[in-house]
């Protein structure tokens, strides 16, 4: 097991990939790093409505992305939609955070913003390309997963989280979900919530058997659907 490196190997539609402990998906053969649902500036969106959540979520999310990029050195970074929490989030970025994001984009050979439902319009003046979906080899990368049957889809949008019950303790974590034919990424954003893998919205995408790759502090833990605690 490569758990010590904080990653977990998996295979979607024949493509070998690794689930990184940061919550991003890395595809070594193509040099592609994929992260979904960053929800940048979610904290300030709440603050504008009177709930003063700590304003560090964008910083925390970008720091994690920087770390993954530094470790994995991808040629192509794909953000799989809902990168910004809302249409005005880009304007609320603190100057420092904006510079960090621009720096990341400038340093990458290729950078793609796939558009999501929270950010249906392309970001203005940050750089990178935008796309509704992206086909690379056998895989299609899009924000919102399509109804079954689907072959070779990588998507986000649903923020999956799974729960295991071990020795009387219940542990809930964000997770990747895959059945080998498709994969849904966990939300990457520090303030993005989670949806249980047995929620109909997620359950209907997969067959009876799937794997949840749960994010731990030090590594990714692959747990079979039968072993998960159902809600």
């Amino acid at each position: 097991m490569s758990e010590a490196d904080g990653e977990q190997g998996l295979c979607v539609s024949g493509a070998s990939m690794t689930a990184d402990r940061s919550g991003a998906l890395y595809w070594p053969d193509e040099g592609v790093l994929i992260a979904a649902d960053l929800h940048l500036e979610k904290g300030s969106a709440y603050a504008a409505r009177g709930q003063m959540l700590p304003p560090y979520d964008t910083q925390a999310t970008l720091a994690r992305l920087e770390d993954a990029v530094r470790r994995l050195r991808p040629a192509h970074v794909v953000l799989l939609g809902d990168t910004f929490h809302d249409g005005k989030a880009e304007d609320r970025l603190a100057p420092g955070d904006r510079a960090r994001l621009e720096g990341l984009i400038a340093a990458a050979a290729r950078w793609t913003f796939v558009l999501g439902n929270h950010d249906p319009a392309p970001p203005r003046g940050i750089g990178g390309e935008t796309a509704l979906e992206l086909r690379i080899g056998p895989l299609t990368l899009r924000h919102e997963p399509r109804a079954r049957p689907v072959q070779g889809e990588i998507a986000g949008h649903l923020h999956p989280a799974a729960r295991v019950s071990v020795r009387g303790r219940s542990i809930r974590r964000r997770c990747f979900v895959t059945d080998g034919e498709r994969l849904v990424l966990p939300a990457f954003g520090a303030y993005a919530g989670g949806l249980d893998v047995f929620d109909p919205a997620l359950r209907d995408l997969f067959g009876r058997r799937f794997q949840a790759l749960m994010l731990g502090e030090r590594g990714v833990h692959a747990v079979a659907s039968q072993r998960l605690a159902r809600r």
Partner: protein
Amino acid sequence: MTRPRPLAPDDPLLPPRFAGWFAGRGWAARPHQLAMIEAARDGAHVLLTAPTGGGKTLAGFLPSLIALAERGAVPLPLHGEDRTKSPTGRNALSVEAWTPFQKRSIHTLYISPLKALAVDIARNLEMPVAEMGLGVRIETRTGDTSASKRQRQKVDPPDILLTTPEQLALLLASREAANLFRGLDTIVLDELHALVANKRGDLLSLDLARLARLAPQHRRVGLSATVADPDHLRRYLVPQTTEEPRLARLVTGQAGAQPQIDVLESEARIPWSGHTTRHAIPEIMAAISRARMAIVFVNTRAQAELAFQEMWRLNDANLPIALHHGSLDAGQRRKVEAAMAAGRLRAVVATSTLDLGIDWGDVDLVVQMGAPKGVSRMQQRIGRANHRLDEPSKALLVPSNRFEVLECLAAREAVAAGKQDGETRREGGLDVLAQHILGMACADPFDADELYEEIVTAEPYRLLARETFERTLAFVATGGYALRSYERFAKLRQTAEGRWRVANPMVAQRYRLNAGTIVEAQMLTVRLVRSAKGGRPLTGGRVLGKMEEWFFEQMTPGDSFVFGGQILRFETIVETDAIVTRGTADEPTVPSWQGGKFPLTTYLAQRVREMIAHPERVRNLPAQVAEWLNLQAWRSVLPAADEMLVETFPRNAKFHLVCYPFDGRLAHQTLGMLLTRRLERMGMRPLGFVAGEYALSVWGLRDMSRLDLGGLFAPDLLGDDLEEWLSESIMLKRQFRNCAIIGGLIETRFPGKEKTGRQITFSSDLIYDVLKAHEPDHILMRAARHDALTGLLDLQRLSDLLHRVRGRLVARHLDRVSPLAVPVLLEIGKEPIFGAADEDLLGEAAAETLIAEATRLV
């Protein structure tokens, strides 16, 4: 504070009209009732401690009724505002009460911890008021009061208003507060011992400080059950300064008849461990059948469910027995209370929901199932039987295991000796302070200097540093983050004169929706649907009550559990509902993980230690228990009361270390966490531990008999190890959620919609993680830490324990388990095992997946 109201020495304390009323009922005013009138005449703040049934409430209200009666009887022309110059002195207050301006003010404010109690007291007061024709208007204000009545009360208040701390906070946060309370004469705080013990007490203290500003002339009356340290309450009652603590006058009520307490000597074998008390149910049923009406108190809801089920299984006589606990649907509880009041029940199985409050019917027996855990709680419970002072209350204590036999005997001795548990002073919570600051801004723009001066007069906030106050204020205004990015979203803004006001009316509206300090655990509504044949269970169905979300998290569909006295099958969770069907199993498959809910009090623990040191001195020690202790003395040793026994022995290829501090589960859990860390560093490879009420067992792969035990239990255990562990602990996260809700960082209610508990939890965890990394010293992180250390971790107690046993460890290295160790070892498997990090547990689940995959045949 004294406010002399001159009086001729021969003037009787009880005015004729009142003396006549007492005489007409064949009563005489009790000495403590007269002492309360005297205190009022002296203008002194006063605390009355008395057992239940001592006419405490009437004593609290008498001075107000007298003053109001005199006001009605002696209408005098208006005098100057300076009451000390008032010619009659005694009637100074009444004079003011007649000014048109003062007429719109409340005379006496009564605060109760329970809404139902406020309503009941109002009803009881009506009687003397009507019979003496006092013409005093008495009204309640609770969550159930209609919007129109609330509105009317603000412009045309009653003479006596009875309410709860939460409603008072809301009133004080309104613009009308200043007028409403300007003429306030007396505040009566009922069940003060219960009010001050938690964050509600913090909030109430701040509200009292505000009332002292609005109505500096008012006097405070505290009513309390007998307590070990009345000074604690006497300080709480009086506005404090930075100098010597100031105390309210103390009046002690007449002690009631000694309760008659029996400890059940079961014919059956007393279990070694566990909390079910199942062995004694037949004997409890027999006791119930001999009584008119009994309350059977248990410590947890799970125990209540179990006992209720068992009792009905044996209820051949079909005695009407009901169940009452906090998770049951409110309508269901009201029905049970009404049936008690009407005398239609023979027994009610209850948790602490019936500890305080109104007397429902004519209870003549209290049964305590499981150890009482504390002397004061037990006295309170016993007081529920036979509310007449001159007759003894009858109680039956039913220990559920051998240690609890000792605990019950110790508690009985303590009651006989008139002892109580000690209380510790509370430091006011910063989350509560934040809520209060917002409330004060909603009332009126405030000056920060003035508000600070006001707040430090509240006893729990007496030592609040100005800097901490400023940071809390900044948190309320803009979040107070080091990164000052939210200035433009501010909730509070400063006026040109530098006073703080709410930024817009929405802020006040949201404050009113979210105020309060009682954060409920995340609850799911339990819905019973018809059995789900084939398809999925239906939604809808009958609401049985609410249960904590964590309980369902450990279940898988098809598991069964007991709730509301029936076996239910868990089907699924839909939104915030747990969907269940009627279970067919005989035994529930999911036990409750919770043992006793309350930790054993320090005082009772000390008495149990003394009993163990000298079992031969214990009166009525059951033979089974005596035998067990003798066996322990022979096989190992019975430690002296000031010693701590530590035993090591091998068992099942593992090595155990068991210690016996008797300091309660919480302190033991914390000790276990810290010991395993230290043992890990010593290379002992500990595997886990289980903490019981009396003992702690740690086990590992290495023999621990050669360890330097003095070093292992050295008080520096609370240094770095604690810090390191705290930073990883989920306890802090759990506390943070409460603080975030009380402090207003997370709002649970929005105009028009309610956010569900499910959504709140997740976001509070995310916020915690972000704050931990970016601003660990945030005001709410400090609040959470403080709560965890004093609450869930019971750190003070652990620290006392480590100092107490220093140099007093008694070690026994045995070849096998000792009799005293059996109970805690039996809890392994029933209680969660600690010591493993989340990460390791996740790894375990993943390894199982890997193994399953490797061994799958198809």
